[in-house]
Structure formats: structure tokens, C-alpha cells
């Protein structure tokens, strides 16, 4: 008997069982569970290693049951790296937050502009902006380094903020263009007749209607800024240095402080794990929208 894996968003077509020994559902479930385990396991490794004592970390065979200690976290936060990790954490938060806000506001305005207005060169401009998403950042590091140096902005927050805004802009515009295009034009025409100007319609009608899009692009921008490593390492040393720079510092010093190393790693990853779970549904829509559209 054939196996019909027909799924259906609205629930009523069921899966036809195949006659073989392993019902397809169980096999599917098993594969999904194994893959999910594979995805989560490294996070488990980071967290447990950060909580292990020195000996437990290097033990062979690896120790699974151990008495957790916060020593590594304490050292990472207050002892290592001259200044405490707190300032790196704050820099990361400030820089990704400000660059996200800038990217989303400018991006939303531009996306709306592209969807609602016709003007000369629109297709070319849109294609160029789209292509910036594909430009590998490493190709820009040399010229941007010299530009920032000449502007005297090395090791400054503003440099990273502007660069991250530029890097996130194309994704924000690409995703929000899809969301804005879904708004029926009549609703905006009704607002026009009701006495609102084009820009007021943008703020009062269009933006509220794409709130899910704005939330998901904000999340994605924040995550990409938080995770960025190359520019942070090249353009900052201490004052504006972010978490990745602190983490990179560990590997250079090669002092095998694995516990502290993992503690900082955990700090860098945990906020995202918690954050994503809270706003998960926006995220998926934004991520896929950007890709599938």
C-alpha cells in the first residue's frame, strides 16, 4: 500500500499508515528527536563545561555527573581580561540595541518607500540594496578600517553601530517589503480620503499593520549584531569592545582556561536561547520570509 505523506495546515487529512513493520510516524519521530538532540547537545557541552571544576574539564573519560561550581563564571566576570567582562557585555547590548533600532526604522521607511511609490531607477536601486545582503563583510574590512581610522573613530561605539546598521538594513528592507506589500492599497487610500498625508499614513496605518514584521526584523538584526565578530575585533580594543572580542582574546592568550572560556561562551549564547524561545513565532516568519519571498 502506498505511503501518502500528505500534510495539511488545517488538520483534517490524516496520514495513511504503511503496512511495513515500522509505522512511518514513529520512524519520523525518531529521526526528528535524534536531530534535535544533535542540535542541542553542543549547548549542553558549553553550559556543563562552564560549571565543571578544572579537573572535571580535562578528565578522560569525560565526566557526566559532577558538582557544579560557579568559579569559572566568577573569574570570567571579575578577574580575567583586566577589566571585568561586564563592560564587554554592556558594550554588546548597547551596540546591538542601538544598531537594531536604527536598522529597523530606516529599513521600514525604505521598504515602504519601495512598495508604495514608483520613481526612476527604482528597480536598480532595489537590486543594489538587495545585493548588499550578499556582499561578504570580510571584503569591506580593509577600506572600512582605514575610513574609521581616518575618522578617528577606532575603538568607538558609533563606528560599530553604523556598520551594523548598514549590514542589517538590506535584510530589514527585504523582509518588510514583503509585509508592506500585503497591506491592501485601499486601506491607505481610505486614510488618504480621511485626511492623512502620505507620511502620516506610513506611521499611523502601515507600521501598525506590519508589527509582526517589525518585531521579527528587530530580533534578527539584534541577533546578527550581537553575533558579529570580524568588525568588532578589528575596529575595537577595549573601550567599545564587545563579547566576541573578549572571547577572541582568550584563544589568543592560549592560557587553556577552558572553564572561563566556556563561561564567556555561555554568556554570549544564553541570552539568544532564552530570547528566541520567547518570541519564536515572529522569528520563524521573519527568517523564512526573508528567504522564501
Amino acid at each position, binding site marked *: 500500500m502506498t505511503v501518502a505523506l500528505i500534510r495539511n495546515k488545517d488538520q483534517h487529512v490524516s496520514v495513511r499508515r504503511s503496512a511495513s513493520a515500522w509505522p512511518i510516524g514513529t520512524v519520523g519521530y525518531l529521526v526528528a528527536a535524534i536531530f534535535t538532540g544533535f542540535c542541542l547537545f553542543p549547548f549542553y557541552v558549553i553550559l556543563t563545561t562552564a560549571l565543571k571544576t578544572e579537573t572535571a574539564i580535562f578528565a578522560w573519560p569525560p565526566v557526566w555527573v559532577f558538582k557544579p561550581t560557579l568559579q569559572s563564571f566568577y573569574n570570567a566576570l571579575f578577574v580575567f581580561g583586566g577589566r571585568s567582562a561586564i563592560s564587554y557585555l554592556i558594550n554588546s547590548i548597547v551596540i546591538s540595541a542601538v544598531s537594531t533600532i536604527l536598522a529597523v526604522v530606516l529599513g521600514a521607511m525604505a521598504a515602504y518607500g519601495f512598495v508604495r511609490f514608483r520613481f526612476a531607477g527604482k528597480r536598480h536601486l532595489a537590486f543594489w540594496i538587495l545585493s548588499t545582503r550578499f556582499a561578504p563583510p570580510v571584503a569591506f574590512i580593509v577600506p572600512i578600517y582605514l575610513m574609521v581610522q581616518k575618522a578617528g573613530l577606532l575603538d568607538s561605539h558609533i563606528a560599530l553601530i553604523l556598520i551594523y546598521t548598514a549590514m542589517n538594513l538590506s535584510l530589514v528592507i527585504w523582509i518588510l517589503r514583503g509585509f508592506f506589500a500585503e497591506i491592501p492599497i*485601499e486601506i491607505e487610500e481610505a486614510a488618504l480620503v480621511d485626511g492623512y498625508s502620505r507620511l502620516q499614513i506610513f506611521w499611523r496605518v502601515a507600521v501598525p499593520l506590519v508589527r509582526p514584521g517589525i518585531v521579527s526584523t528587530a530580533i534578527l538584526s539584534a541577533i546578527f549584531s550581537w553575533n558579529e565578530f570580524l568588525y568588532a575585533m578589528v575596529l575595537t580594543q577595549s573601550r567599545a569592545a564587545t563579547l566576541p572580542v573578549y572571547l577572541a582574546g582568550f584563544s589568543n592568550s592560549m592560557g587553556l582556561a577552558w572553564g572561563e572560556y566556556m563561561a564567556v561562551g555561555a554568556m554570549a549564547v544564553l541570552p539568544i536561547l532564552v530570547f528566541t524561545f520567547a518570541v519564536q513565532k515572529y522569528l520563524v516568519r521573519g527568517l523564512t520570509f526573508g528567504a522564501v519571498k
Partner: protein
Amino acid sequence: MAEVQLSGIHKQFGAIRALRGIDLVIPDGAYVCLLGPSGSGKTTLLRCVAGLETVDAGHIRIGNRNVEALEPFARNVGLAFQNYALYPHLDVRGNLAFPLRAPRRRAQFDDEEIERLVRSTAALLQIDAMLDKPVVTLSGGQKQRVALGRALIRNPTVLLLDEPVTHLDARLQHEMRVELKLLQRRVGTTTIHVTHDQLEAQALGDLIVVMRDGLIEQVGSPDELCARPATSFVAGFVGDPPMSLLQVRLEREGGSLSLRVGKTRLRPGERLARLLDGFRDQHVEIALPAEDISQGHGGDVQTVSGKVQAHEWVGRELQIAVMVERTLVRLRTQQRLDLRIGDELAIQLNLTRAHVFDSKTGRRLRSSPN
């Protein structure tokens, strides 16, 4: 309230000439229906009056002001869209109050004035019980009422309606038509109502403007349209079922005139003979309302025959479409005929009330004064 005057309106979208010179006067307080098939330019004309489209040429006067260059807001028009275009993120009260909260009107309405107007408008449209409901949860009829409320709340000089009831199911359509007409009578706003449904236009329009390919075919009251269609297009468009249009050849032997339809020769009857007396052309187009066409032989009234194309029950009447000389002739009968598609059917034509048109221009022949 105000009279609307349209003069020399032209509008083109790339190659398509949507409006090819419209001249129309809409009396103050009148309920006027723009009637025409899709693509006739009726919606474009409405959008030009609203200011959502700029006119390429011509003037639009509302009351005593030329408004063709003004943006929609400055024209003080109210517009109810075909698919309602309500603000999905607001509830009913939010939708009704939205126009009053426009920044440009900040000075005119304070909060409790807005609330008062919202309540009175909601009462007028019997939606005062659902002011706090989100609009997405409303039914089609309720959404239409909110859309009307939003258009009327700021007392527009002209109310524009774009196919307001065509989306509703049959029962609700009848109900909303009555309400729309009574509401307009009570509010008295000059109203322009666009529709493709000729029965709707006849039901609501004090005046009906029949449009085709960007031009006005005829302006008249519902009765005028049925009694004296100005062109063969109007004749073919109005009436339930629409009038049948027949190409007829004129044959004159020894002073007596006869009309040839395919193989059969018909006597024109005294009125038509006088009408066609001075007419030189070989061909004429005649329009016959369904009431003047009946089934079967008998009597001196002439008969033609053709193949049955379709037979449909509409209410208690059987509507039959017969193909005669490449034109569809539609008739109604109460009898229960056992018809199959393709059967040969003889039909009688009573020409006494036939309308006659010049087959080249489609315009109605000047009937001699009778």
C-alpha cells in the same frame, strides 16, 4: 451638500484610454448610479472625483469650487470602498473616529465631540451595539455599515460608493439596498454609486448614467432607460432578461416595406413603417423586450425559429435563449416546457413596441412625434 459638475474629463493609463471625454452634471442631493460593464471607466471616474486618480484633462467642480487639482482631503468627499478597506488594527469606534483624528483636523474636534459624533453615526447605521468589537470579527453587512459610517461621519459634501453591496449574499443585498436609499434620503448628501448590476442601478438611482469604453451612452431616470434606450448598447444592457437585439434587412416592394430576419419576412406594423419611411440604409437593428417575445405559432404576429442555447428557471419563470441568425433572443414563459439544448423552437415577435436603432451608429432612430 453640493452639485457636482464634470466637464471634458480625460484619463489614460498607458495605452488604455479609461475616460474619453466625460461631461456630466449631478444635481445637488441626487442619488446617481454609474452603470456599465467592467472596463467601462465607471470606477475610474469615481476615483477621479475622489482625488485618488488625477485627471489628464477636464474640470471637476464640487459646489462652487474647482477641485481637480486638490488632494482627496481638500475635496471633503466620503468614499466607501468595494471591499470596505476598514483599518484592521482598530475596532469599530477607532475606524469611525479615524477621519476626525486626522492631524489636519486637530483643531476642529475635541475628544468628547468625537465620541458624540461616533455614537450618532453608529446609531444612524444601527451599529451602536458593536462599537468595541474589532472590525475583523464583523460580518459582510456590518463591515459595509462601518465603511459607510466612516465616510459619512465628517458630513462630506459628496458621498461616493464603489459597488457597496455586490459582495453580499442575495438576502442581505435587498436589505442593504433599501437601507442605503433611505439613509441617503435622510442625510441628503449628493451620492454617486458605481455598479455593474442594472437592477441595482434601477432600484437606487434617481438618475442612471450608462457608461461604455470611457464614454457616457445615456443619462436618464430608470423609466426613461427602459422606455426609450438611446443606443442599442443600453437596450441590450437593461431589462431582466435583457432585450434581444436583431439585425434586420429592409426590403421595399411597390411602396410596401418588410423586414427580413434570415429566411422569414416580417411586416413592420404601422408605427415602424412610418418611422422607417424616410430611412435610406439597408440594415437596421431592432431591440425587443422579453415581454414582446413569446413561444409557439399562431395569430398574425410573425414567427422566426432557432436552436435553444440555454433554458434556466429564474423564480417562477423559465428563461429561454434561442439563437436566431447569430443573435441570442431571450424570452420568458410560465409554462413548464420540456426543452433540451439544441431543440428547434419557433418564437413569435411582437414588433409593436420594438425600439429601432441605426445599425452603424447604434443610435436610436428619431421617432416621428406620436
